[in-house]
């Protein structure tokens, strides 16, 4: 995927840890994506439903409305039901959450502390490419 084609892609990053949010935004912005961001589920939901991003990077543990809450509300929306979501989190081994996520159409869980920025970028590109070829 070229930098040029990345320019018309919108990403939404929802992450409450500010330092992590900043670097993710920096990273994807410098790749040419249009990056929207939010630090809690509610804010993220409003943005998602308004802007219809091509891919949503979602954290699970957040105040007010957490990742799961966001996901459920998102899927209740017509557009949201088909929206692409990638979960970036640091909790794992929580089988309940994994199943819940799958029930809400998310099959990808990336553990932040194990993935480098480069690898995440690659994964995002792949997912968006997959979307294009549909």
């Amino acid at each position, binding site marked *: 995927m070229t930098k040029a084609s990345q320019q018309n892609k919108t990403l939404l990053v929802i992450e409450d840890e500010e*330092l992590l949010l900043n*670097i993710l935004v920096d*990273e994807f912005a410098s790749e040419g994506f249009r990056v929207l961001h939010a630090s*809690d589920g509610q804010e993220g939901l409003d943005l998602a439903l308004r802007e219809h991003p091509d891919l949503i990077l979602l954290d699970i543990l*957040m105040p007010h409305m957490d990742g799961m809450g966001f996901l459920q509300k998102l899927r209740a929306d017509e557009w949201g039901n088909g929206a692409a979501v990638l979960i970036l989190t640091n909790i794992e081994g929580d089988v309940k959450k994994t199943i819940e996520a799958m029930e809400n159409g998310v099959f990808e869980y990336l553990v*932040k502390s194990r993935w480098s920025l480069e690898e995440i970028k690659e994964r995002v590109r792949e997912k968006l490419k997959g979307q294009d070829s549909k």
Partner: protein
Amino acid sequence: MNIFKPSFPQFRIKKEKFPYFIQWLWNLSVPTKLHIATALIVVSSLLGVGLLWLGMASLSGLRAYVAGEAMWSKAEKSAVNHLSRYAFSFNENDYALFQEAMKVPLGDRKARLELQKEDPDLEIVRQGFLEGGNHPNDIDNIIFVFRNYRWMSFVEDAIDAWEEGDKRIERIQALGEQMHKIITQSGNTNNLQVRLAVTQRIVPLVEEVHLLDDQFTILEERFASTLTNGGRGLTRLLFQVLIGIFVFFSIAAVILILFINQTVSSVDRVKGEMISFASHQLRTPLTITNWYAEKLYREADLPLEKRSRYLRAIYYANKRMIHLVEALLNSSRSERGILVQSLSRIDPIKAMNNVVEDLDFHVTHKKLTVIKKYDSQMTTMMSDPEALKMVLHNILSNAVRYTPAGGTITVGVRQDGSHVLFHISDTGVGISKDEHDKVFNKRYRAAKVKELGKKGSGLGLYIARSAVQQLGGNIWFESEENKGTTFYVTLPQNGLI
């Protein structure tokens, strides 16, 4: 949001439902419980062995009495026999045999009389029983039973029978001597005339002897049966007591072992949770370091402002990890009561300043104002610098965390009698009244705080209080919801009292 939620097993025994004693037992430390359980087992074993020994000694003693009684009856019958013969043979030999036989009951009598004294001479007692024909190895048992078992009715009964027997033995002895006197003083016993006269005088004596002999039979039987029945009863009693002791101590030991098991498994569980919690808490700062460092080394042409921002983020993320590790270590140390390691002379104002500086990043980031109110006359104090730093840091980091942007934090150090008083105030979210007494609990996170999603271990104030207590000081706070909180810490100026 509260990240760390300890998992509870499906079935949880409510401690409070049990009586106070059980609760106290539950709360003892594992080594203590183990010691008590061991002691119970040892004591019950010793008691068991002791009772067994006692039982065997008693039964042995009773058996010795019965054997002694057999000797006694045999001798008594033999004496009566010889005396009867003597009464008609006038043969000195018969009389000698009579006296020989009498030694047995008389020996036992001598022993009994001595034993009934206030302070018996055991040598005389032993001598008496030996004369009574008792086996030397049985004598100690016989004495033991006599001296220690009189309170048992059956033993008392048997000894009564013995006393009755002795009375009659004394009478027999007297009768024998009387006969002997008559016969030896009668003169020529070959003379028929003389013989008749003597016999006339002796016959009533012999009749009495036979009368007594009949009585002896009854007494001897009474003595033997009382002891045998009593012996059976004693065995049964001892057996029951033994079983009782065994059951009691076994139950006590089993209960303690169950408690230990529960404690150990809950400790294991908590340890597991601690590790899982620790690794979880570490992940965020690790990710920060990871990604920022990645960016830094991958992009050589990053603008300077970004570079320095990224490096700062890494620095503070690292600090966060250091503090977490410290907190975990201290949590473990505070459990073991070894938070305070050593005392040295320190400057309390400098200590406070250091702690404030440590949190500079967050203070600047949230645009908080820090006011310092230090007593200009403040001198040095004796304390553990690491422990003090940790206490102040934990309180101050809370203040910073829970004060919204633009707020104010005031720190102060001043003399307070023989103590040094530190205070840290903020204009933060405060602590609601109903949570006031939970503040120093392990992993206390205020409800409001959870909602705001602030990151924190919940261990800070628990450890702080533990450290302050070990330093011989005091910690308390004042707070009003949405207005702010002030924490106070006093420490003895001259170290631990």
